[in-house]
């Protein structure tokens, strides 16, 4: 691997986004999958970094899931998106940041389509007025939330308490980065680092002391694929994708996977359990899996947030070995306690992969 070659590409694919005053929209599924992530994002940006990130309670889904499942036409999806943008404008913002990669893809695609087909934009403008009586607007800058953490990675590093380093050996942790397909595969210029060698997560890993693992199936999709996981009979395809990735990364013995998409960490996490149940194989050491975290969770960890406040107990793959490697103190008893101190109940113990 010639790192200078990658650096050249990273330098070519830098996008210009402001570092403050954003209209923040959430992801539909992340709040359910990883409830700590978006909260942590807002907490870091607002409270730790002192930025202005506004959230409007009236924002909705971007329509992406329905769009990609072919249940709504493109115009409908675009009108939903136009409404989101209108909300941004109404709230007095012109920078738009979303938490979800699917949304990011939809927004990018929509903006590019409007740019190429102004007549479609005019049509949507009308639809928006007809349906919501809202004024059509387009954001000046569109960013994904991971773009901002990428942008703030050195500021976060300054406040870092637990770098991505194995405290016992002193060596950097080996980190696999996994980019959501809709981040830059559709529009390479819209992602930090482009489509082939995205830098957005690599930059965070490097800034926080980890070592990036580039393995043969790095570009492979996690297998989320809306059509695949919606239908039970098709989930095998989804699982097989993940399986292929793990088989490919296994020899590198990664300590951690960091992702920037709602679905990827979910499938990279849950399928490890399913693969273990079906084949008896686990990819971490000593019967553990490889933790697949969101970038907010990793940012939170290095900044010293309590693992359970970050919602890491929501991961199927046990997080404890990672915490121990990084030297992060945690209270095992609190793992399944809610914020109010009540017991959340423990998940059933899987037969293969270790959960504690």
């Amino acid at each position, binding site marked *: 691997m010639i790192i200078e070659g990658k650096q050249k590409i990273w330098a070519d694919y830098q996008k210009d986004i402001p570092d403050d005053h954003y209209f923040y929209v959430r992801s539909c599924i992340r709040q359910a999958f990883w409830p700590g992530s978006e909260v942590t994002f807002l907490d870091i940006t607002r409270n730790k970094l002192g930025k202005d990130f506004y959230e409007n309670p009236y924002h909705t889904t971007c329509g992406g899931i329905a769009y990609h499942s072919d249940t709504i036409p493109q115009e409908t999806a675009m009108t939903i998106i136009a409404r989101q943008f209108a909300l941004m404008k109404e709230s007095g913002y012109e920078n738009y940041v979303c938490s979800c990669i699917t949304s990011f893809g939809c927004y990018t695609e929509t903006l590019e389509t409007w740019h190429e087909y102004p007549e479609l934009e005019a049509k949507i403008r009308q639809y928006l007025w007809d349906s919501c009586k809202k004024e059509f607007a387009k954001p000046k800058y569109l960013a994904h939330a991971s773009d901002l953490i990428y942008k703030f990675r050195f500021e976060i590093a300054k406040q870092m308490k637990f770098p991505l380093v194995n405290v016992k050996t002193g060596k950097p942790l080996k980190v696999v980065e996994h980019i959501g397909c809709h981040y830059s595969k559709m529009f390479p210029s819209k992602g930090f680092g482009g489509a082939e060698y995205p830098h957005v997560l690599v930059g965070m890993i490097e800034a926080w002391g980890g070592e990036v693992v580039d393995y043969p199936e790095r570009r492979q999709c996690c297998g989320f694929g809306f059509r695949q996981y919606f239908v*039970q*009979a*098709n*989930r*095998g*395809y989804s*699982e*097989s994708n993940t*399986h*292929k990735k793990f088989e490919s990364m296994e020899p590198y013995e990664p300590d951690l996977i960091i992702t920037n998409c709602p679905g990827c960490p979910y499938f990279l996490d849950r399928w490890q359990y*399913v*693969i273990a*149940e*079906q*084949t008896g194989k686990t990819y971490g050491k000593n019967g553990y899996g490889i933790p697949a975290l969101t970038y907010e969770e990793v940012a939170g960890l290095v900044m010293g947030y309590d693992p359970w406040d970050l919602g890491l107990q929501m991961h199927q793959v046990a997080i404890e070995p990672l915490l121990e490697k990084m030297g992060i103190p945690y209270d095992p008893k609190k793992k399944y306690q809610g914020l109010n101190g009540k017991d959340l109940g423990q998940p059933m113990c899987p*037969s293969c992969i270790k959960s504690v």
Partner: protein
Amino acid sequence: MDFGFCLSPSSHVKMDTVDLTTFNRLKETNPDINTCIACGSCTATCTAGNFTEMSFRRILLMLQRGKEDEAKKMIQRCMLCGKCTLVCPRGINIRKILLDITR
């Protein structure tokens, strides 16, 4: 545990592990086996191909891509009539190769 689904086999031909024993054995006695240009004449003229999927072009590929069983299954259809050999623009002795595969 039954999840109602399972890992699906990869459709990739893994060239690193493909077993080429049969193909290499054929190559020794039939060096012309390499010279196929995949024109498909053999398949188009094939008497059995008129009724089945029989295709010598595919059989050659199957042997090179580790699908020997499929290749042998396809050969079951062959009538050894030799039309393929007559039409091959590269002059490959196809009938002989087909026969050699069965040994």
